[in-house]
């Protein structure tokens, strides 16, 4: 161990600081400009574990999965140029979903910056729009302070990724500064998030107390704030049903009588109908994403809208609100709850129960293996207790519908960015965080192939991640849109040439299983759950042309939801993607 007086270089000071900050995992890939930092991993004694990935994008999703399973950031460590460039998708994914992450990129030496030196990329400039904050370090002695600032910025307020670009001469120069240098951020204060405006609370309470048909819309902010108890208290005090966003799954138990499940484009019919018919929308910690509001002008037009958010720039961005409370979700709800009274919502809850009976989530049990059935059986066999990660597409929406979450931090899915290739590495990160947990990556055959190389990472680290490949040999969600809106003209969606995923798993030294018959699903899942010595890949050969319903075509109003396949030809959606 170093003392203040022992000589050390910038990289060693950096690693020491990260260890002090309580970082557990560094996911990374080495390279020339990061050599001093990689060397410091060997020379500095720390509690941190380094995981060598197979592609830098995988490292970012692993750090993301770790953060979404714990609420704590992990570090991504890569080299300059292409190494840094390969992290972009993962950084953007974290930024869109408010996930804390610290990315360290090696960089060319300072006197070569801007001269097109080998593996030089202006990653500081490139990442500006997709980070919460970033740094290009110009003084070795700044490293501990900047690492502390990055950690503070990444984890407080609305969390997000912070990138530190470190030129090689900066990391390998002697460190002569203060290892305990304190953060110095005059432009970043978070105190006001915990100082709730009393007048705003009273105005919000007045609107809420006048409601007869309330709906609470709970988002990721509730989880980040660890405000599940307050949400439960508020919902039960008001007698208000709760619907959650994709990222909010688990902040309110989905098996609870007041739960409406997920709302939005592929949400439950009853959640979306409730949003249309309610007279109050109480949004806690969701940013009114375009996937949940549909046509903005028609969203909540019969309702008063109250919005609680820690980020002031979210108010009136998508939806004009009637009242707002700016601040941390837990603190805000604690301030609000004493002002709330039980609402006369019994007829409304009865009405919604009717919708639940009339429009349940369901799927056909005959005619081949369906993704819904595989997910449904996974839910049963794991008793809803697994940590689930997903990729993006049809399997993701079915997983959201059929894998009910009663607890937070167990649903890990790329929402805002919609990043394919996310699920498997995110599962590796979640498994690192919780070695004894059952972690299942529910992925499609498209997304899985984007980051499949991380099988080596999972095998070497003996991580018992289960990869459930719901394989329809299609980019199914795009094919669904082409079927519904483009006269079934398939273009760029046929994944012919898929490899045998079970055999690939075996080639990496993992357990590979295949299931084709509906009757065999349970047996195969149980076999996978037994294997705790390393990863298991299940190739589930599913029917090719199933579509996800309910569906609100992009840009359509929530009341124009399709609960079942349309009988007539549909107009092309005008909304975003």
């Amino acid at each position, binding site marked *: 161990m170093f003392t203040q007086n022992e000589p050390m270089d910038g990289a060693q000071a950096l690693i020491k600081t990260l260890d002090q900050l309580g970082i557990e995992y560094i996911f990374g890939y080495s390279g020339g400009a990061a050599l001093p930092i990689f060397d410091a991993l060997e020379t500095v004694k720390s509690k941190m574990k380094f995981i060598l990935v197979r592609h830098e994008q995988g490292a970012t999703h692993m750090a993301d999965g770790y953060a979404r399973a714990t609420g704590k950031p992990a570090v991504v460590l890569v080299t300059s140029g292409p190494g840094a460039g390969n992290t972009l998708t993962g950084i953007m994914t974290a930024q869109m979903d408010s996930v804390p992450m610290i990315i360290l990129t090696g960089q060319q030496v300072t006197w070569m910056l801007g001269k097109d030196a080998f593996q030089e990329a202006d990653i*500081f*400039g490139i990442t*500006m*729009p997709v980070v*919460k*904050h970033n740094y*290009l370090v110009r003084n070795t002695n700044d490293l501990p302070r900047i690492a502390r600032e990055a950690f503070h*910025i990444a984890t407080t307020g609305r969390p997000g990724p912070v990138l530190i670009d470190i030129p090689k001469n900066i990391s390998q120069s002697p460190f002569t500064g203060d290892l305990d240098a304190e953060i110095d*951020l*005059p*432009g*970043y204060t978070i105190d006001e998030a915990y100082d709730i405006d009393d007048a705003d609370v009273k105005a919000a309470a007045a609107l809420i107390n006048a409601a007869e048909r309330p709906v609470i819309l709970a988002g990721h902010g509730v989880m980040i704030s660890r405000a599940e108890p307050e949400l439960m208290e508020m919902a039960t005090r008001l007698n208000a049903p709760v619907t959650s966003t994709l990222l909010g799954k688990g902040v309110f138990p989905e098996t609870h009588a007041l739960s409406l499940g997920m709302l939005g484009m592929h949400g439950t019919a009853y959640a979306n109908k409730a949003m249309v018919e309610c007279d109050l929308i109480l949004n806690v910690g969701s940013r009114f994403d375009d996937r949940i509001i549909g046509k903005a002008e028609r969203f909540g037009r019969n309702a008063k809208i109250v919005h609680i958010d820690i*980020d*002031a*720039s979210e*108010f*009136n*961005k998508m939806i004009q609100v009637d009242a707002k409370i700016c601040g941390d979700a837990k603190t805000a709800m604690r301030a609000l709850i004493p002002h709330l009274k039980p609402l006369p919502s019994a007829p409304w809850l009865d009405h919604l129960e009717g919708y639940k009976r009339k429009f349940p989530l369901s799927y056909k049990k005959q005619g081949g293996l369906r993704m819904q059935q595989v997910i449904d059986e996974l839910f049963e066999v794991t008793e809803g207790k697994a940590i689930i990660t997903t990729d993006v597409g049809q399997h993701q929406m079915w997983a959201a519908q059929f894998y009910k979450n009663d607890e937070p931090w167990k649903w890990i899915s790329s929402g805002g960015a919609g990043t394919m290739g996310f699920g498997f590495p995110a599962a590796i990160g979640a498994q690192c965080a919780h070695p004894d947990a059952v972690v299942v990556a529910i992925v499609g055959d498209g997304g899985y192939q984007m980051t499949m190389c991380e099988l080596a990472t999972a095998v070497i680290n003996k991580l018992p991640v289960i990869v459930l490949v719901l394989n329809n040999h299609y980019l199914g969600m795009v094919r669904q849109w082409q079927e519904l809106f483009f006269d079934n003209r398939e273009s760029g969606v046929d994944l012919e040439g898929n490899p045998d995923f079970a055999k690939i798993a075996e080639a990496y030294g993992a357990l590979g299983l295949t299931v084709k018959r509906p009757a065999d699903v349970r047996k195969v899942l149980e076999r996978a759950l037994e294997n705790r010595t390393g990863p298991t890949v299940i190739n589930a050969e599913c029917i090719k042309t199933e579509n996800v319903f309910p569906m609100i075509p992009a840009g359509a109003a929530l009341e124009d939801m399709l609960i079942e396949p349309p009988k007539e030809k549909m107009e092309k959606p005008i909304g975003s993607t």
Partner: protein
Amino acid sequence: MPASNSREIITTDTKLPPQADILGLHTLSVYVNNQPGVLARIALLFSRRGYNIDSLVVSRGRNERFSRMTIGVSGDPKILDQIIKQVNKLVDVIHCHEHTESDSVVKEMVLVKLLTGAARRTEVLQVIEHFGGKTIDLTESSMIVMITGDTEKVDAAIRLLAAYEIIETVRTGKVVMARGEEAT
């Protein structure tokens, strides 16, 4: 030799748009860390929402750790309100406020280079005097004048000087300061 009339004057000066076309003018004061990259972060937020920055003045603050920016933009006030909040969210931004004519003074300066022989020089000097301007460069054939004031005054001066041969104008863009004791 007097300026030859045969010499073609290439002017980079553009005509002023009619006042009615300039809708929703806004003046923002942004106090930021004096660090590389801060301007890029702010500019990115405006460009992403399709906002053009009409004028921009950046200079070091009295405390050299910080810089002061005055940004002139035009556009929908609702969107602007959201951009201001996003600018305020940047870690390098200490604060960002919008200022109106009533709560602040807004000034700018223009340099105008004119082609004027001795014959019309007196006329030009009268115009400049009216606007409280100054002559800061004078040759046999040309002069540079400096005029300071609010945007309307500077616009009016340029309009009047356009009766002569303007070679070019350079405007500083607006700087703003809150009225009274309150800090900007």
